[in-house]
Each structure stands twice: as C-alpha cells, then as structure tokens.
C-alpha cells in the first residue's frame, strides 16, 4: 500500500473545505508484536491473524452496510485494516477479566515504523479497565518516526470497558491511533483520550452501538503546539433503542498548530429514545493556529434527541478581567487555563502511574499527588 | 343522571396497573374533591379521564353527559366540555397565550370569534386573575413562573367555559397571594359558568372558600372512603394513614 485514505467524514460536504477525509502516504510498514504484562485473569488467544472489516470500497455506504452487519469499523476506516493485513501484523487477541487492569505501553524510537494491533473481547457482565500509552523514548527528539496502533473492542452484554489513552510523542512523529468498538446490549465504552504531544496525529474512534441501551462516553483533551497537527474523527453509530452517546472534546491550540475535529452522532431508524450529545471547547492561544471543526448530527429516527455545541476562541472578557483582578497577567491566565483543561481529563485516568506521568509533564518540578 | 360517571376504571401506564377499579359520579354543577397520599393515582385519574394515550384504560367505563367517552380522543373529550388543568403545564415556544386561547376557543365552540371581542374578554379575565396584560403576547407558558403558569391555566378555564373542570394540584407550589387569586378565579368559574369541579389535591388550602359537595379518598389506586366536607377536616387532623390497610 502506498497511500491510505483515513478519517472519512460519515456524510461528506463541500470538497473545497478539505474536511471529508485525509490521504496520507507516510505509512508505518513493519509489523510489531505488542509486549504487555497481561494480568493473570485475562486470556491470550493463539490466533493472531488480523480480522479487519473487509470493506472493499472506502465509501460511507459500504461502511454503513458493514456496521449494520454487526462488524467493527474503526474511526480511521477500512484502509487501516488493509494496512494491518498487508503488513501481516500479529494481533494481540485478549479476553478481559474484571480483576485487574491491562496496561499496554508503547515506546517509540527515532526511525521506528511500527504497526501494532490489539483486539479485546469483554465478556458479558465484565467491567474491564485498559490503559494504552504511546510515548516517544525522547519526547524532545527531532528524529522521524511513523507508527500506528489499532484497538478493537468487542463489548458484551452488560459489559463495560474503560479505555484510557495517553499520547506523548516527539514533534516529527506521524501517528495513527485507531479505535473501533462493537457494543452489545447495555455494553458501555468509556474513553479518556489525552493528547499531549505528537507531530502529526490521525485519531479515529467509531462505535457500533448495536445493542439496546449501549453507550459511549468520550472525554478527549488535546494540546497541539508548534507545527503539530491533529486530525480526529469520532463517530457514534446509534442503532439500538435507548442508546446514549456523549462526546466531550476540550482542546488547546498554540503557536502554528493545525487541528480538525470531526464528530458525528448518527441516529439510525429504530434507535428509538436514544440521545446523543457532542461538544467541543477550544482555546486558541495564538493567531497562527488553524482551528477547524465539523460536528455532524445525522438522523433518520423521530424519537431521539441530539445536541451539539461548540465554542471556539479565546477566554471571555469576563474571565480575563476576573482573573486579572486577582493579580495574574495574561500569559499566566492562559497557562492556567491550558493546563486546567488537560488536568481535568487526566484526572479521569484510572492508572495512577500514568496520571503521575502526565502531571510531571504538564507541571514539571511541581509536587504531584 | 350524573354529568361524569366512572365505573370500575382500571388504568395502566407502561403495562403497570395504577388504578385498580375506580368508581366516581359527579353531578352537573357539583364540586367534588379527590384526596389521597402521594402516588395514590389521583393525577392518573385526571389524565385517564382526559384520554391521554399514555394512560391505557384496561377495564371499566367513563361516561360524560350520558355518552361513553372511554375510547374517545383527547380533543373530542375537550370539545364535549371537560377541561383539565395541568399540574405542570407544557411550554409551547412560538405560540402566544392569546392566539392559543383564541384557537382553542374556536375549536371548542366551532365558531369564529372576532378578534376585537376576544381581546376584550381576555383582558377582562386576565385582570380578574391579576395577570400582567403583557403575558397575552408571550409564548405559551415559556419562561412563566410556577404561579403564572397556574394562572394561565385558570385563564384558559375561564375563557373556554367547560361544564366540568378537573383541577390537578392547582394550588401546589403557590404562595399565599397566588392561591388567593387562583381561588378567586375558580369561584368566578363557578359563578359565571356554573360548571362542575373535580379538584385533585393533597392539601386543603384551595378548598376553604368553596362549597364542597363530596370528598373521595383514593389510596393505592382504589376508592378508600367517601364523604362530605367533614372528611376534609378529618384528613387535616388525622392524615391518610387511617385509610391505608
């Protein structure tokens, strides 16, 4: 594969906006086996063959068909599956247990071109906790690397998975972070996504809310700075009755950062009494950033409620005046507000060690916890 | 013949039976009170009489003016002359109180009403209820305080002139002055229209100025006791425990 097309907007719009999807030719090529301390209660399968959604065309119609056939289609899309298959990536295939959390730590080095994949089945009634870290060995390096990671989650009846992801990558790293979930009846997917650094990030997460009362809760916080870029595609495909999708994105853009957020709630016919909400709040710290957002609500069901809200810009005059009256200058206020956003999301991460690492990165030299 | 005649009425909400066979008879022009502890099914009875599709009548009959209205649709029931004052009136953005009442009045009477006559009548009724005239042009119940919402309900009662008014907890959440105004509105309805009243309440403030003909106590979805005005005083002193088996 020479190029892949990722992060399709589930319903396309004007081409000149360049928001419908991204074509990229910077691809990770070498298959990389995940090394993790799998807790004793979890089981590892011998089968490491990549599954993929087997979608022939990159079209939204094909993706929708696959979702209706109870398949997992990830946020980045079918090309990522193809890439994983082509590179013959050995998939770490696990069955979760509630007893102990799983931590997967990926340390990337300059020159790496690693592609890995994990697939976790969460059996009926099990509540699992997973932490995934994507970290550059030297976050200050200016060496190149192109890496990718895919997480597929099959969430059983009355089961839940809390997935916490932290990304701290060097400024010339291209990274593909791809998530796909299938949620059975009352299957719950909770994601805390904290993006602290990374040269060029493609992040995608799509949930197939097939089961009745299944749900999705995403709390995402990002800091994009320097010449970094972030392209995100978050999608909730709401099929079951009384499904619930909550997507909250808080971000900070600095310097010459570029960011595009795509977030979609898609109510299909039959998703009676479902609700969906998406919000994005972006703090723009510089005049040279590019802040793009396209929040979709798609709906073919009468009995649903969907809302979307976005505020993009600088802190309000009231906040500035209030904080300045307490003796802070503009830069200090911006610094406080920037960190407050990331701290809020980081506080939701379950793994204590990971929380501490984020705090150390955001507040160097300060006493933590 | 009674104006409203309910026999053996059973009502379910989402397949759960709330009323287990209620009997009730209200004569023309009479004032009846329905009392009972929270969750007894009092409001359910009001909604069921009014034909709400969420309240399924599984057994028994409701007749009004000699006609069986058990399966009738809500608007037809309203046109026959029953009015339900809601405990929590719904907000309807974009539709003014004034245009709504005029619309409803035309539906209920089947006649077109001249705007000028209507405005005069409405202004008079609003004055009697001590309502700020600007409320006429505000969107129906949108941003109204609890008290204003209740007054707007009584205003509709006075304008629509039904032969039976069911008042569901009309006095709840009101301050003393508002209760006085609402009570005055109800008295005006009795005097001008001479209609029957079915008052659903768990307190007795609103009953002070009214001649009550009959009091019905409902507990756990069943008739627990029936009597005259003296029953109100009894409940004031002894509460509902005495009726709970």
């Amino acid at each position: 594969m020479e190029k892949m097309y990722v992060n399709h907007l589930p319903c396309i719009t004007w081409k000149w906006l360049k928001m419908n999807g991204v074509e990229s030719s910077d691809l990770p090529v070498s298959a990389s086996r995940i090394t993790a301390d799998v807790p004793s209660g979890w089981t590892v399968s011998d089968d490491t063959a990549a599954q993929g959604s087997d979608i022939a065309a990159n079209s939204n119609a094909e993706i929708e068909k696959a979702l209706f056939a109870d398949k997992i289609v990830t946020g980045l899309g079918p090309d990522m599956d193809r890439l994983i298959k082509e590179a013959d990536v050995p998939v770490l295939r696990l069955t979760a247990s509630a007893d102990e959390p799983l931590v997967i730590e990926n340390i990337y080095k300059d020159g790496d071109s690693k592609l890995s994949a994990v697939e976790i089945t969460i059996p009926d009634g099990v509540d699992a906790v997973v932490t995934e870290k994507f970290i550059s060995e030297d976050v200050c390096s200016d060496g190149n690397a192109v890496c990718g990671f895919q997480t597929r989650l099959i969430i059983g009846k009355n089961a839940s998975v809390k997935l916490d992801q932290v990304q701290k990558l060097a400024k010339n790293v291209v990274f593909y972070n791809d998530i796909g979930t299938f949620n059975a009846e009352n299957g719950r997917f909770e994601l805390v996504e904290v993006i602290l650094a990374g040269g060029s990030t493609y992040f995608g997460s799509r949930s197939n809310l097939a089961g009745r009362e299944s749900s999705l809760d995403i709390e995402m916080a990002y800091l994009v700075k320097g010449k970094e870029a972030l392209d995100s595609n978050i999608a909730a495909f709401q099929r079951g009755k009384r499904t619930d999708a909550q997507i909250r994105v808080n971000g900070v853009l600095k310097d010459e950062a570029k960011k595009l957020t795509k977030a979609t709630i898609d109510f299909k016919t039959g998703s009676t009494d479902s609700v969906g909400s998406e919000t994005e709040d972006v703090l723009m710290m510089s005049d040279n950033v590019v802040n793009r957002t396209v929040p979709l609500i798609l709906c073919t069901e009468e009995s649903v409620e969907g809302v979307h809200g976005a505020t993009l810009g600088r802190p309000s005059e009231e906040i500035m005046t209030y904080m300045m009256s307490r003796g802070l200058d503009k830069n200090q206020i911006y610094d406080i507000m920037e960190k407050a956003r990331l701290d809020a999301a980081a506080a939701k991460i379950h793994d204590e060690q990971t929380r501490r690492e984020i705090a150390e990165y955001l507040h160097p030299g300060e006493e933590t916890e | 013949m009674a104006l409203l005649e309910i026999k053996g009425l059973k009502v379910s909400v989402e397949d759960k039976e709330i009323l287990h066979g209620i009997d009730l008879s209200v004569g023309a022009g009479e004032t009846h009170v329905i009392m009972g502890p929270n969750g007894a099914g009092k409001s359910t009875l009001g909604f069921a009489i009014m034909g709400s599709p969420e309240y399924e009548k599984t057994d028994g009959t409701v007749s009004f003016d000699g006609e069986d209205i058990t399966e009738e649709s809500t608007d037809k029931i309203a046109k026959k002359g029953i009015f339900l004052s809601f405990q929590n009136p719904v907000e309807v953005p974009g539709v003014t109180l004034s245009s709504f009442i005029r619309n409803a009045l035309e539906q209920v009477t089947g006649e077109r009403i001249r705007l000028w006559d209507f405005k005069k009548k409405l202004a008079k009724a609003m004055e009697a209820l001590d309502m700020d005239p600007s409320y006429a042009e505000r969107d129906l119940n949108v941003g109204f305080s609890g008290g204003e919402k209740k007054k707007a309900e009584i205003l509709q009662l006075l304008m629509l002139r039904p032969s039976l008014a069911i008042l569901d907890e009309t006095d709840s959440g009101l301050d003393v002055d508002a209760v006085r105004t609402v009570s005055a509105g109800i008295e005006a309805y009795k005097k001008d229209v001479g209609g029957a009243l079915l008052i659903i309440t768990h307190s007795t403030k609103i009953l002070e100025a009214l001649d009550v003909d009959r009091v019905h106590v409902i507990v756990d979805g069943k008739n627990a006791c029936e009597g005259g005005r003296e029953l109100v005083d009894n409940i004031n002193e002894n509460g509902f425990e005495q009726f709970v088996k």
Partner: protein
Amino acid sequence: MKEKTQVADIDRSMYDFRNEDKDAYRIENGLTEEIVLKLSEEKGDPEWVREFRLKSLKLYNEIPVPDWGPDISGLNMDEIVTYVRPNTDMKTDWKDVPDEIKDTFEKLGIPQAEVKSLAGVGAQYDSELVYHNVRKDVEEQGVIYTDFESAVKGEYGDMVREHFMKLIPPTMHKFAALHGAVWSGGSFVYVPKGVKVAIPLQSYFRLNAPGAGQFEHTLIIVDEGADLHFIEGCSAPKYNVANLHAGAVEIYVKKGARCRYSTIENWSKNMYNLNTKVARVEEGGSIEWISGSFGSHISYLYPTSDLVGEGARSDFTGIAFANTDQNLDTGCKVAHRAPNTSSYVNTRSISKGGGVNTFRSSVYVAPNAKGSKCAVSCTSLMLDSESRSDTIPAMDIRTSECDVGHEAKIGRISDETVFYLMSRGLSEDEAKALIVSGFADSVSKELPLEYAVEMNNLIRLEMIGAIG
C-alpha cells in the same frame, strides 16, 4: 367537515394551476454551443455577453456534477428547455399583460400586493419579464429597478458589466457555469447613496412551461448608506417532467448600507432548485437573508455572505420544510474577512413523510478578522421515522481574537405537548400544525405580515393537507 383556521384557507390549486403553453418562442431541448448562440441571438445580446455565454458553456462541460449533495441524476440537461419566451413584451401596466398571464399573477396575489405594500414589482413568466413597474416616488429618489436585459443594453450597461457574475463567477460550480451560459430575465436594482427605500421591492418568478429551466439573474447594488428590502417569490405548477431553476443573485452592499433579501420559495415538487446567492458586504454594511424553502424536489441553496469591510454584518434566518419526495439541501456560507465583522445564523428545519433535510454551512474567520463574532444555531424537527434530517456545519477559524459559537439540536414534538394542546380541544393534526408554526415563528416574525401569513398557510398545507 370543513376545517376552521385562523388565517385564510388556501388549497394547493393556488400554486398548482397551469396554463397551456402558448409561448411565442421555445428553443430546442438541451445544451450545445449552437443552442447557446441561438439563444444569444434571440435575445440580442451585446458582444461581451455572447462571449461570456460561450466561455461559461465551456466551463459547464468541464466541471463535474457535485457528488456531495442530493442525487440530481434525474435531471437530464438534454431534456431541459433553456429558453421559453412568453407571447408578450414586457409591460409596465398590468392592463397590458395578456389575460392568461395576468390571471396567473392575480391568482398568486402579485398585483394586489403591489397596490398594498410594495414599492415596485417585477414579474417573470418562464424566461422573460412580462411586467415591471416601480412606484413614482421611489423612482424619483433615483432608485433604478429594471429588467436585466434593458439594464445590460441601457445607460447602466457599464455598471452592470462591471458587477455581472463577479460574485458568482462561472467557475464557482457547475450550475453557476450553466447560469452564465443560458441566463435570461431577472432584475437590476440600484439604490443610490443614502436612499432608504421604505417599502419592499418584489420580483416574482413563475415557471409555467413543462420541462423548462429558469435562469434569471438578479443584480442588486445598494450604495453607501442606502437601505433596501427585496422580496423574491417563486412558484410553478407541477409536471411529471423535471424543471430546473438555476438563477443567480448578486448583491453588493456598500459602506454603511443595508440590504434585506427575503425569499419564500414554493416551487412545485418536480423542480430542481439549484440557485446561487452571494452578497459582498463592505465596511459597516449589513446583509439580512430571510429564506423559506417549502417547494422543489431537490434544492441546493446556500446564500453566501462575504464580509470584506470592517464591522460588516450578516444575518441569516432560514426555514426548510421537506415533505414526501423532497430533498432540501440548504444552509449558508459566511466568510469573515475583515476585523470586527459579525454573523448570526438561525435555522429551523422540519422533515415529514419521508422528506430529507440537510443543513449545510461553512463559517470562515480569516486571520485578520480580529474582534469578529459568529453565532450559529440550528434546530431540526423530525415528524416521523421515514424522514431524514442531517446537520453538517463546518467551521474554520484562523484567529484567536474572535468569538465563535455553534449549537445544533434535533428532536421531535413531545407527546406531552400534543396531549396538552388536545386537552384544550385541538385535534392531533391541529396541535401538531400549531407546534410546527410556533417552531417556525422565529422565521415568520422576520417577514412582512402578508408573507408571514403565506408561510403559515404553507406550513398548514404541509401538515394538514389541502384545505377548503
């Protein structure tokens, strides 16, 4: 039983009646260079217009059909008649308009409205204006309101040439190119500096010929400090063949001027409405779009505000009602390209009976647009689960010193509200119609009374069906 309504009853025949085709001239179907040249000759175009048409036709053939919106494969350009001249010259007195055509406009209430509440009227029947008149006092203020052909050839020729298809160049999209090639009819409006036109001007477009296209061009220049309200109305009888409307509206709002452009679109449900509207607003000027979309089979409609002067402002208020066999892709585009500009977008959509609504928008705030404000709010109502409602708003913000807010909501009519209204004697249909009218209130209250009434009638017609 006859229904009682608060406003005058209407029935579909009000829009749906059709006249026999007695046009004087009808160009053959389809689109070739030969046809375009013939059309140009027929209209007596000046040289530059003819050149422009040919250049546009070339672009039309090169630009692909849009693949991001509703399917327009049902529109076969080889079957569309691009030019139909009615059997009359343009008149300035209704008395002189042929009875049959006059009848049409009388049924639509245009002459009556002119007497009551309009400063000027233009009426287009198929491809040409059949009537144009402006009130004397307005004319005396120096306001020019004329049919586009006379404007091109007359004393404003240079002004027209300077502005024509500069905001909507034929390169913009396929149907802008088509418009450039086959445009015919429309109006030219010039409001001189400081002149405030107290009451609205109106153009009404009626497409009577089956299988025809209407491609009128409207050019409005509101000079510094001037003020104008322009109303556009459109309708057509229903045919079994596709009709096409690909008009273009270009509005220049100069320094400190204000223009309000209102449309109640009620094309018949075999119409492909691929209309383009752009306003360019200079320093301190303001454009107000009021847009009601009720008719047509397919619509692509996104009025665009290009805010190029400091403090320029755009207001967009829109409503779209998609019923059976309708796919309405509507919305707006705003570009903030100067400091302290502001834009407000408020839309409502209603989907019913399998109808499809898409709200599509884009907001761009340029790096130099410091101190700008933008608020977008769109609310959609789904009346059943056969219908569809999509919201696709895009934002591209390039300065931190701005304030951009966006909110979207989708929902249904609550059973509780319907029950409440029914308990006061309204039938279920009446109750729902009332709720939908209330939902549309934020748009109808922006319209002059007669048009608000017409809009309410259209909502009732869609909700309850033909009345009376």
